[in-house]
């Protein structure tokens, strides 16, 4: 329970009171009093102690609990329950929380005492203790120390041991206990003589079990969150754990999402052309301090008319439209930020509102809230195109410095995953789209509002691993990952566009509460992305190159072209003919096992070792050899359109653009052009190839005359892709072509099919043998 509260003084208090309560029990049993009387006496003692400590002012004579005291307790308990709901671990040790803790410990102590001592049952006495331990361990979310577990478990085992010893000794002498006098004294005093042997055995078993409990999670990789799992490196008492801070509007976000009813919080009418992109923004969280995203403290000013031009948005560079939105907030909705579309240009609102220029938000001054507010916002609908974002110049130094800060406490897995997911992206825009698509489509994430609303560095790592969460997790993680990639990012909190009503207005409910990342692109300014699956809409500009399961690390949940069954080459062994020819298969190397017993290294051995070493050296070049061979076959004259198309998609895959079965040839071509940043002749070549495929697959009649120039087109595309890729991507494409996976999966499929066939054959032969008897 220690990690739950930020000070540990209550522990001493609880221990003292518990000791007094236990002492009363011991005395009462000595007397001896009836069992129920003992329990009653202990309970009364507990109450008395709690009165003295927590409600002395209300007690009769400063000692005896009266009705006032009970009233005070009831109040404290209510308060404590509230506090527990409000704070996450570690909570401040308020009087109310201390009462709950100490009272709870006394109660559990009493139950354990009754069960273990009064009724002499050590094993069931562990249950309340286990409850106590699990509450602490569960609430502290992975911050339980293995030492605490060891202490608790060892204590419990000792309890069991004491009981077992007691019981065994009552049976008389037990086996193996040395040579006592033959037919000697039947009964020994407890704890003496031969009874020691089982005790020793018991101790051994206990130590073994404890050791196993601690070591097993280390050995078994699938049992996640083992006790010995290292905490955040470089952090002391785990201060950066999955805590939330109760100061930002996010806390109410999950509550809103989990409410059974969808209360209307506001209604608006807008002139925006595409209302589904009209997110209402409350506040921007721009500071990522490693434990949470929060809004920086910034200067606020009077609301200027009109508001200054939005940062980074170059007039004329991207298409903008003006939209006028009139909002009526519900009377039950009191928020001290004004929800507005981004970027607002001017606001007409009554009340004491002030302006925060960096986040472009309106903040209520002197307790001003949105309760019942009516206001009108003129905002810009910024419609950048994918090409404009892709071609965005580097952001200004100031933005870059401020919005790409990532504290060193963030686990490296965040940056690693970001890099893995965005491998092959040519510019920050593509990285952002890949990130978004990975979260929304390809990464296997699930939208779930029941997940704890964690924030901070550990929470992000945990989310990336568990892949369950809601908008807060998605937006926090995407923003953090974008920052690790050097893209300026922040998190916006607000509402999705709501539900259009029949009268033309749009109703926004509490369930529309949302958080989303905003990434900065010079020319377009802060740009919205939507990583949360099944919430809101993905902006048009992120769809242009197409959503795709771009993560080469995580297998795509969709059926993809690569997963399609494909007949395997008939080599029979697990080694392709090409590889065998080049001497690469592992089977051919272990000649090194040859006559090692000879005195000196025999010539055979030396040759063997040399051949093995050569083979090992040549091993990394096998994929390259295989790929070159396949390419040559596919691009040979007369190989046809399908071969050329497969070569094209495989080449794109090698350069980090995986195939996606849900795309048509035309879409696949567009994606290769966009993701591979192809231009000019290469882009035309892709289009030509796609058109050839369309003709081949979908046009009526017999196949047309062989299309000329397919091989040249594929080569053009390959050159284009190589020119656009960075050196690591080029090397990867050369030495570890990703399209090798297509072949591997084909082998896998063939193997499964062969095994299934074999099983069927065996099964069908069994009844046949049985038939003559029947």
């Amino acid at each position, binding site marked *: 329970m220690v990690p739950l509260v930020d000070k540990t003084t209550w522990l001493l208090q609880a221990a003292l009171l518990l000791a007094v309560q236990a002492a009363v029990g011991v005395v009462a049993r000595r007397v001896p009093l009836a069992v129920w009387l003992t329990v009653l006496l202990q309970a009364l003692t507990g109450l008395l102690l709690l009165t003295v400590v927590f409600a002395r002012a209300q007690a009769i004579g400063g000692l005896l609990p009266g009705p006032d005291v009970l009233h005070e307790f009831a109040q404290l308990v209510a308060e404590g329950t509230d506090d527990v709901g409000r704070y996450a671990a570690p909570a401040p040790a308020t009087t109310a929380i201390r009462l709950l803790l100490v009272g709870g410990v006394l109660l559990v102590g009493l139950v354990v005492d009754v069960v273990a001592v009064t009724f002499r049952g050590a094993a069931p006495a562990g249950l309340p203790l286990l409850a106590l331990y699990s509450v602490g361990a569960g609430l502290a979310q992975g911050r339980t120390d293995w030492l605490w577990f060891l202490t608790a478990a060892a204590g419990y085992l000792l309890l069991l041991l004491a009981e077992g010893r007691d019981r065994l000794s009552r049976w008389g002498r037990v086996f193996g206990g040395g040579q006592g006098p033959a037919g000697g004294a039947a009964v020994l005093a407890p704890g003496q003589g031969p009874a020691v042997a089982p005790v020793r055995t018991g101790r051994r078993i206990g130590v073994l079990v404890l050791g196993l409990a601690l070591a097993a999670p280390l050995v078994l990789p699938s049992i996640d969150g083992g006790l010995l799992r290292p905490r955040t490196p470089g952090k002391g008492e785990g201060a950066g754990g999955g805590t939330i801070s109760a100061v930002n509007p996010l806390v109410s976000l999950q509550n809103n999402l989990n409410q059974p009813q969808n209360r209307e919080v506001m209604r608006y009418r807008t002139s925006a052309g595409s209302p589904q992109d009209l997110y209402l923004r409350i506040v921007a969280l721009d500071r990522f301090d490693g434990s949470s995203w929060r809004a920086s403290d910034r200067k606020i000013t009077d609301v200027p008319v009109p508001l200054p031009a939005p940062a980074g948005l170059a007039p004329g560079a991207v298409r903008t439209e003006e939209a006028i939105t009139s909002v009526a907030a519900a009377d039950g909705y009191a928020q001290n930020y004004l929800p507005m579309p981004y970027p607002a240009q001017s606001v007409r609102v009554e009340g004491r509102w002030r302006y925060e220029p960096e986040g472009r938000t309106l903040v209520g001054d002197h307790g001003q809230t949105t309760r019942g507010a009516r206001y009108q916002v003129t905002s810009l609908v910024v419609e950048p195109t994918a090409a404009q974002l892709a071609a965005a110049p580097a952001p200004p130094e100031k933005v870059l410095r401020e919005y790409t800060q990532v504290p060193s406490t963030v686990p490296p897995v965040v940056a690693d995953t970001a890099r893995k997911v965005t491998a092959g992206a040519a510019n920050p825009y593509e990285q952002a789209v890949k990130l978004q698509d990975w979260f929304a489509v390809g990464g296997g994430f699930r939208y779930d509002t029941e997940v704890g609303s964690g924030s901070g560095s550990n929470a992000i790592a945990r989310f990336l691993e568990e892949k369950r969460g809601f908008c807060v997790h998605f937006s926090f993680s995407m923003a953090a990952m974008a920052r690790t990639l050097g893209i300026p990012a922040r998190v916006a909190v607000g509402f999705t566009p709501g539900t259009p009503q*029949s009268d033309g207005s749009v109703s926004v409910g509490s369930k529309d509460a949302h958080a989303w990342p905003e990434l900065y692109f010079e020319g377009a300014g802060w740009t919205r992305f939507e990583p949360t699956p099944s919430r809101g809409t993905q902006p048009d500009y992120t769809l242009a190159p197409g959503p795709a399961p771009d993560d080469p690390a995580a297998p795509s949940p969709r059926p993809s*072209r690569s997963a*399609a069954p494909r*007949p395997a080459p008939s080599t029979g062994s697990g080694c392709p003919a090409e590889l065998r020819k080049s001497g690469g298969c592992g089977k051919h190397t272990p000649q090194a096992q040859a006559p090692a017993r000879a005195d000196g290294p025999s010539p055979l051995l030396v040759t063997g070792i040399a051949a093995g070493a050569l083979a090992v050296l040549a091993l990394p070049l096998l994929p390259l050899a295989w790929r070159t061979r396949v390419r040559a076959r596919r691009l040979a004259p007369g190989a046809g359109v*399908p071969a050329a198309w497969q*070569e094209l998609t495989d080449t794109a895959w090698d350069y980090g653009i995986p195939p996606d079965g*849900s795309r048509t040839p035309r*879409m696949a071509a567009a994606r290769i052009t966009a993701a591979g940043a192809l231009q000019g002749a290469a882009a035309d070549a892709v289009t030509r190839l796609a058109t050839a495929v369309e003709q081949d697959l979908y046009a009526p*009649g017999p196949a047309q005359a062989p299309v000329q120039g397919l091989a040249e087109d594929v080569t053009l595309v390959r050159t284009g892709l190589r020119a656009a890729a960075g050196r690591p991507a080029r090397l990867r494409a050369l030495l570890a072509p990703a399209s090798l996976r297509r072949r591997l999966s084909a082998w896998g499929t063939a193997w499964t099919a062969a095994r299934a066939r074999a099983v069927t054959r065996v099964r069908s032969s069994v009844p046949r043998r049985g038939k003559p008897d029947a």
Partner: protein
Amino acid sequence: MTTYDERAGLSALAGTADRVRRSVESVIEGKPEVVRLALTVLLAEGHLLIEDVPGVGKTMLAKALARSVDCSVRRIQFTPDLLPSDITGVSVYDQQRREFEFKPGAIFAQVVIGDEINRASPKTQSALLESMEERQVTVDGRTYELPAPFMVVATQNPVEMEGTYPLPEAQRDRFMARVSMGYPSPEAELRMLDVHGGPSPLDDLQPVAHAHEIVKLVEAVRAVHVAEPVRRYAVDVVAATRHHPELGLGASPRATLHLVRAARAGAALAGREFVLPDDVRALAVPVLAHRLMPTAQARMNRRTAEQIVFDILQRTPVPDPYAHSGPPVPGGL
């Protein structure tokens, strides 16, 4: 191989369709995709359901389409007291000639605009929908063929409004596509103010195609080739709606039929003599979404049928015949 006639038919189609499209767009500002879809449905011999809030130009679209094609137009304003016979027609006894004479109802036109179809009683709705499906009307045992081309453009307000009988899913299935107009962009709305300030722009609209031309175009569309992989793709997409966890009711086989027909028209409009999976994709949302019924859970999550169809498109693989053609080697084809 494509014959010379087919190519000529297609280029004629592209030309005529383009004229009609421009004519309609001169009245409906800034909604090219809606106009294109309406035209697709006309060429695919389907019926169009326009669903949106009042005043966004639903009726205007229907009228502009009808006027641009030189064909007969009837408009039926659906009200709760409209009778089935008002739509189909009625036999009246002629005193002088001493025989029953058939007075055709409002459905006897080439383009029928059913305004606010969800205001009529279910009985009247079903009278309309039956004649839509069969393209004929039977009154007192006699069957009357409806003229060709025949297209019903029905408009419907969102169902939360008072005094409406929302079309049941089975009835909505009869419509090939549903489209929602959406609000115009501010620029389009400004231009609209200029244009509509004077006399109605519909009055200036001159027919740019004859009805018999449209009939020919429809025949040309029927001849558009749909390859086996594309048909399989359409079936896969529709079948996916039947197993989607967020859908209580998937799309019918009729939906598959409509989807392929619409895709044919879409390909023809693009001047292509064969259908691509892209055509199916582009039309899947308007053709399928209105037939689907999201589960209560999906509705609670604010998932619309459109989003779910989009989701299905993202997950349904395009059949890849190359994948079954073995390792691509020379001569392996």
